[in-house]
């Protein structure tokens, strides 16, 4: 009797285990694809190549322009001294788009009053890090920004 009882019990335990395991597996098989589905596929890596940010002569000295840099915005500045500089336009604070302020002669973020100098360094306000600077080359008529080459 006793042995039959334990046998029954282990049989029940075994069946419960199979049932539980089966449901767990089913659960995983349903939710794993759903979880992967809701995360969008990564765009083929961060933008690599070079872009023509502006035409020479388009920007007078002491002005700036926002141009598309793959998915995100870039900022091209033509300094008062006539030099071209390019940065990521995504504020390092909470990712608003920054702008060049001719009256201040440096870069400014309107969202929470963040200031960056013309090397991209965060000089006032909440931004915690400098803006990434990108190399600029002049080629024919175009101002070329090449994020891939690093600054």
């Amino acid at each position: 009797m006793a042995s039959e009882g334990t046998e029954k019990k282990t049989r029940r335990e075994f069946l419960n285990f199979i049932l539980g395991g089966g449901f767990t597996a089913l659960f995983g098989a349903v939710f794993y694809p759903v979880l992967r589905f809701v995360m969008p596929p990564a765009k083929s890596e961060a933008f690599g190549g070079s872009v023509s940010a502006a035409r020479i002569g388009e920007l007078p000295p002491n002005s700036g322009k926002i141009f598309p840099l793959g998915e995100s915005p870039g900022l091209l500045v033509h300094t008062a001294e006539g030099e071209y500089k390019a940065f990521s336009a995504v504020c390092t604070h909470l990712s608003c788009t920054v702008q060049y302020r001719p009256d201040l002669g440096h870069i400014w973020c309107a969202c929470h009053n963040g200031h960056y100098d013309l090397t991209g360094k965060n000089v006032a306000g909440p931004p915690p890090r400098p803006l990434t600077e990108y190399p600029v080359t002049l080629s024919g008529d175009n101002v070329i920004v090449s994020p891939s080459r690093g600054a």
Partner: protein
Amino acid sequence: MRLFPSLYGWVSERLDVTPLVYLVKKKSVPAHRHSLWYYTGGMTLFFFGVQVATGILLLLYYRPSAEAAYESVQFIMTEVKFGWLIRSLHSWSANLMIGAIFVHMFSAFFMKAYRKPRELTWFSGAFLLFLSLAFGFSGYLLPWNKLAYFATKVGTDIASQVPVLGHSILVFLRGGEEVSGATLTRFFGFHVAILPAAATFLLLLHLLLVQVQGMSVPPALEKNPNAKSIPFFPNFLLRDLLGWLLALLLLVVLASIFPWELGEKADPLAPAPAGIKPEWYFVFMFQTLKLLPAEIWFIPGELAGIAAFTLGGVLLFLVPLLDKNPTGRWGRWISRLGWMVAAYIVAFTILGYLWPAAK
């Protein structure tokens, strides 16, 4: 009317509705000097009803893509007959609903209505509050205008500061690395499918619990020997109806005298405009983050702020489990804490609007 009894007879021969009738007949609502707060839940329900009705109407013309969303809302406002009104009602009622749900939550909190056996009512209510905020946040982006675009950028960026999972949360919310058409499509899905389904379910649960358990009486009035009450049907319901009529009046006046603006179309290649602010019900959190120092001890200030608000949300949810002895010393401290939180929310919201705009 002969129609109603015969209809009732027809139904009850097929389905036993006596328990339902009994429930409605038996239910009474306590009458005391704090009874007015019992109407705040019904008020929230009314605005939710307006949201569902106007939201479904907007769906007839709204188009959820970065190319067409702004134009479709413009079309609603300029071409569709009464389109401006329907949109303005949806926007105003959204704000009134959130205002009502905050008042409702605080009134239940201070009357300690979450005491046993009403813990589940509180949990479902707290969940509904979070869902309402999610409704507001997702709906705000849908017209695809400049202010909403950048407010969403900032809001989702804040979510990305969560340790470890932050970046995944950001990508999940934005549908990519940047706020784009993919974000709009997602937010649309949340706003018109997922959130309504979840809210409807929780709302039914919440209302069922309220009907079955009846209204709680605040501890201070509970022992009153000559406590009064009024029948739920029709007395309380008629007063509810009167409240709804007044709410409708307020809503229509606001929606027609101050039609909701559309602003400029979002442009991913334009700098952020000055004066980016989230909707008013997020302003107290936003203002707090703004005033925190860059580092608290060794934790980044923003992260500390986000952690504190998350903890606040969890504690709010768990109130029934924390307040074990509502009439004792500890229970009184919980009420005092509630007043402090309420004062904090009001003060920081006002501060957020008075804070000098960036120069």
